[in-house]
Structure formats: C-alpha cells, structure tokens
C-alpha cells in the first residue's frame, strides 16, 4: 500500500516578491514632495486670505466711520453747508488700519500683546458731489497695501439737509 505525498502547489506562500527599486522610491518621494509643497503652499495661501479678510473688516470699519460722520453732521437748510459736506475730494493719508498708536505708548492702554502684528496704514479718499442745494452724494474709498498688494474698500451714501 503505497503512499503518495500530495504535490506541492506551484504558487506557495513563499513566492518570490520583487523589491522596490531605487527609481521607484525616488519617483514616490518626488510625488510626496510635490504633495507636501502643494499642501504647504495652499495652507500659506489660506492664511494670507484669512489675514486679508481680517484687514478688510477693519478697512470697512474705517470706511463706515467716515460714512457715519457724513450722515450725522448737522446740516440745516438755513446754514452754510458744513465743510465735510462741501463738494470736492478730501484725502487723508497714513491713518492707522490695524493698530492704535496710543495703545502702545500709554501705560493704562497697553496689553501684553499690543502691536504683535505689523502696523498697516491706509489712505482714505472722500468725494462729495453736489446733487441739489440740499442733497449730496458721497463716495468713501479706503485703500491700503498689505504684503505688497493693494486693496480697496468703497462705500457710497446720499445725504440731505436735516430740514426743508
């Protein structure tokens, strides 16, 4: 009574596995490096956008402040037109955008983190156009340069005399 051992499968678990070649590794590393560079660039860009958006909010506040001044200045039909509502263009240079000078110079105003960011200045241009003797339009434009790029925010309003 003979015994025949079963034939060993041709594809055993000890099959030959090819290694990863150096060129394959280099290509994989290059792809990874490209991914890393792209990711870091994207995150840095997102951070720039976040900072730009924050600056824009402050620029809007500076613009809104001038609009408020234009809207709330007393202007009676019986009085001469206030200076701020006289037709023409007014330019204000070097206004602080993201900092308050006094906060870093006066002891009761300074905090532990005052002036951590780089101060940015703005230029505010107000153009008043006379529509009628009792009505003007105003365009307030705030412009500033941040990280080498120019930005502009603008608001428009109408204003009439307080009385008729």
């Amino acid at each position, binding site marked *: 009574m003979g015994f025949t051992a079963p034939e060993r499968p041709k594809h055993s678990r000890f099959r030959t596995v090819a290694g990863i070649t150096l060129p394959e590794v280099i290509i994989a590393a290059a792809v990874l490096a490209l991914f890393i560079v792209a990711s870091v660039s994207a995150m840095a860009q997102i951070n720039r956008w976040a900072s730009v958006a924050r600056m824009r909010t402050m620029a809007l506040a*500076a613009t809104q*402040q001038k609009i*408020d001044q234009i809207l709330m200045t007393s202007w009676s039909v019986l009085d001469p037109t206030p200076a701020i509502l006289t037709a023409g263009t007014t330019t204000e240079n070097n206004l602080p955008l993201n900092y308050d000078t006094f906060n870093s110079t006066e002891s009761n105003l300074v905090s532990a*983190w*005052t002036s951590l960011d780089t101060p940015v200045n703005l230029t505010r241009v107000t153009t008043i156009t006379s529509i009628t003797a009792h009505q003007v339009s105003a365009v307030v434009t705030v412009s500033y340069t941040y990280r080498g790029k120019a930005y502009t925010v603008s608001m428009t309003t109408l204003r009439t005399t307080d009385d008729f």
Partner: protein
Amino acid sequence: MHRTRHAFTFTEMMVALSVFATVSMGLFTFTATSLRLVGRNLATNHTHENMRISDQELLYNLHASASPYVLITYNGTTYADATATATTDVDAYTQQNISNRTNGVRFRLAAGGPYQLTASTTSASTSLTFNFAVGSTVPYVPEVGDKVVLPLLSSAFDILAVTQTPSTGSPTGTVTISAPLGFAVNTTTTGNVTTGYFYREVAYTVYNNQLRYHANYTGSNQGNYVIVRDDVTSPNPFALLFVPGAPASTGLNLRLSLEFYDIDYYSARNYKNGTVTLQAVIPPRAQPPDVSQTNSM
C-alpha cells in the same frame, strides 16, 4: 522550502535607511509646519470673528442709542460713572481730542412704545397709565429706572415706581414719574391719542478679557451681563471725543479701540498669533437723541 533568499547588502541597507530617514524628516517637517500654519489660521480667523461680531454688535446698538454716551468704569466690584476729560491725544480718524479711556460705556436704547396714554392727567400728575398691549402680547414691561418720553410734550421723565404692572391678561400699566407732568392731557375725547416711548439703560463693559453687554444697566441689575466676545485684551477701549478747544464732549461720538488676541495658540516658540486692534468712532444715528439727560438710576 528550498528557496534561495538573499540577505540585503550593506549598500542596500544604507540606501534604504537614507531614503527612509529623508522621507521621515520630510514628513516630520511637513507635519510641524502644517500644525503651525493651521494654528495660525485658526488664530487669525478667531480674532477676525471676534472683531467682526463685536463690531457688528456695537454698531447695531450704539447706532441705535437714544441718548448721549456716558463713560463708566468697572473694577471687578463696583460700577461707577467716569467724568470724560479731554486729553492731548488726537484721534486720527476725526482729528478730535480723545478723552480719558475707560472700560465701559452706558447709554439708553428704545425698549418699548409707542404706547397709548389711557388715563387723563392734570398738570400736577405724577402717575401715567398706558396700554402696553401689542396685539395680544405685552412685549415690554416698564421697570424702575426706565425713562418715558412723551413726544407731544417733548418731555422725558424717570420712572420711579411701577404701581400697576402690565401683563398679557391685563395690559394696562401705571408708572410713577419723577416730576409733575406739567400739562393736562385729555385722553377721553375721541381722536385724542397721546403716546409714550420707553427707554432702558444698557451698557458695554470690558473686563476679564470679555466684551460684555448689560441689557439692563439699572440699579441692582448692573451686574447682569452676557458675553459678546472673549479674548478682548484692551484694558480701556472706550473714550469720548472732544471738538478741539471745547470744554465738554457732546457725548455723541464714542471711540472704540478694541484689541483682540488669540491666546489659545500662543506658545514659547513665539508663533506669531492673531492680534488686531479695531478702531471705530460710532455716533447715535438719531440726533438729537430722544433722551438728552444722561442720569442713571
């Protein structure tokens, strides 16, 4: 099992190790840089959000102010009025002199009205009765310390007592005012409609790095507040503006200098975090304001 297996050569090992080390260092640097960039982004967006929401909230309520602004101080225990005094500091936006800075401001907001006066008065009357119903509700209930303004008389009065509190079931309410009305008002004749508007004192304070809103800054209610935003690091952000040379401020231009900082991402590595200072000058939108007296109760 008779399979030939080669060991790695020393050169292969060195190359593999070098590649592994380079990739590991790259991944580590990438991870560290990513964490730093993400942290910075969160900080920037956090301060931006704090600033934007604070600005919107302040603009909304300060524009709606029905009275001049009054500076107040809070030292952790006591709220007190502060006298505004002009300094030599000049506000860059308005070219007006900035007052002493404080960590609070109070003013009045419209709380209810117009409500119809429902009981006739004499000139000596110090008691006013109104119908506080709005449809089937009573959205405003007068309190001691509120002010009532009667546009017909162009007069404002402090409310010293609420002798009949209005409710949904009984919307008629009666208040005691601080001085005789000074006019006889007939409410019974058909067509006579006399109304009153009610104003409540509110306040903003900054304390413990929080911008706080006091929806009822009257008497014992002063200490009740809601936090508008945190991470506000300006110790004294509020001031009034003085026209150059003027002895007193109109109290109609509130200057804000709110510094926001994201403390959460600060570290010993001096990561540059989100710090920003919002400057604004906000006037009431209705001028002259409905309530000219700035007394507090």
